């Protein structure tokens, strides 16, 4: 007894795909030989599958999505790490009220937050690879590299010059270290945040040269940069 139209049509998808196996395949084939309506049905399924296979594989979105994606990548990197790094550029785009120095007040707050978070993130990442005793020793003694020892003395310009020389020296030394590409990428990203904070604070100081708070923040920011580079260098030596 051959299959009915209803039985046949339930299996037409598989028959058209070629995935139906005997004995069902023979039953469907036998029914199609004698049923014009089901042959038309099978042809319709085949036409639909051909049309689906001919659909374009790629469709460009109506607008460029990269700018929004690019803006979100910092957040994405943050969630992969330990704590968020706050990009200063984003704080400035938001258009918050501006301080007397001409900078957005929230920008300065973000700068301070960023520095704290940068240190936390990098410390968390790098100290994983440190010898525990070394980390404890550093915390107890407040040990500093020779390059940073004399930074506190002298005027702002002089101190800036010392910081720049020290950071450049550490940065050059870092290139030869055995840090993994992932760690180097994190260090670079955080250096970018710190450099952005430095640039922002320098602009603020140019507008308000006598602002002691801005001066302290600038020097503290340089200090953070040195500490970041020192930690990265130590991690490279340990790694």
């Amino acid at each position, binding site marked *: 007894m051959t299959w009915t139209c209803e039985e046949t049509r339930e299996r037409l998808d598989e028959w058209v795909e070629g995935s139906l196996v005997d004995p069902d395949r023979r039953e469907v084939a036998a029914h199609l030989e004698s049923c014009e309506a089901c042959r038309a049905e099978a042809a319709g399924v085949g036409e639909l*599958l051909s049309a*689906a296979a001919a*659909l374009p*594989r790629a469709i*460009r979105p109506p607008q460029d999505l990269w700018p929004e994606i690019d803006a*979100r990548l910092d957040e994405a990197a943050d969630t992969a790490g330990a704590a968020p790094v706050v990009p200063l550029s984003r704080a400035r785009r938001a258009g918050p009220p501006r301080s007397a120095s001409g900078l957005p007040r929230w920008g300065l707050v973000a700068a301070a937050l960023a520095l704290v978070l940068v240190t936390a993130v990098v410390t968390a990442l790098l100290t994983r690879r440190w010898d525990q005793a070394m980390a404890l020793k550093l915390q107890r003694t407040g040990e500093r590299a020779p390059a940073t020892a004399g930074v506190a003395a002298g005027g702002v310009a002089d101190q800036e010059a010392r910081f720049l020389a020290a950071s450049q020296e550490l940065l050059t030394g870092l290139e030869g270290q055995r840090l993994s590409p992932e760690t180097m990428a994190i260090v670079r990203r955080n250096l970018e945040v710190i450099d952005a904070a430095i640039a922002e604070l320098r602009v603020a100081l140019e507008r308000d040269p006598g602002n002691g708070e801005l001066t302290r923040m600038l020097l503290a920011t340089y200090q953070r940069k040195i500490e970041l580079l020192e930690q990265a260098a130590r991690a490279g030596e340990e790694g």
Partner: protein
Amino acid sequence: MHAATARTLAGVGRSGGEPAVSARVRRAQAGDRAAFRELYEEHVGRVYALCLRMTGDPEEAMERTQDAFVLAWRKLRSFRGDAAFGTWLHRLTVNVVLTDRRSSGRRVRRVEAAATDAGSRFESAPRVGLGVDLERAIARLPTGARRVFVLYDVEGYGHQEIAEMTGIAAGTSKAQLHRARRLLREALA
């Protein structure tokens, strides 16, 4: 293996014959954002097409496309080259669409806009009229049937893979596909 499966393996799975972990992917894994942008430029069309067909909504598709690339950036270090990057990204995009709560809860769909948007890009495809009509009909399918049809007949996944990705049984996937095909043929008749 059906035709779409073969197409997927030839396309997504072996995109341009590139090695499993290309130098560009390695640069992106190391944090090189310019390299990641190049990957975006190469793959955004495939990712957006998938999102558009699975959601039936151009605006939602753009949101999910962004989500997919942001998630890819975050997970890039876990990519080990077991499959080609395009295949990995494709699978990740499917998961982004399927796990988005807004997607499953959204009922108001801009179907006509989706069809127009997709249809305007069919100039190079054969049988232009049928393609546009099919895009519009796919966008009008019920969510479950649409997703299975897109994943099986357009993207080339098997029922077992669809079952694993969507959390439905393989038999349910077959039933949804049968339903989708029937509804599409009725819509295109």
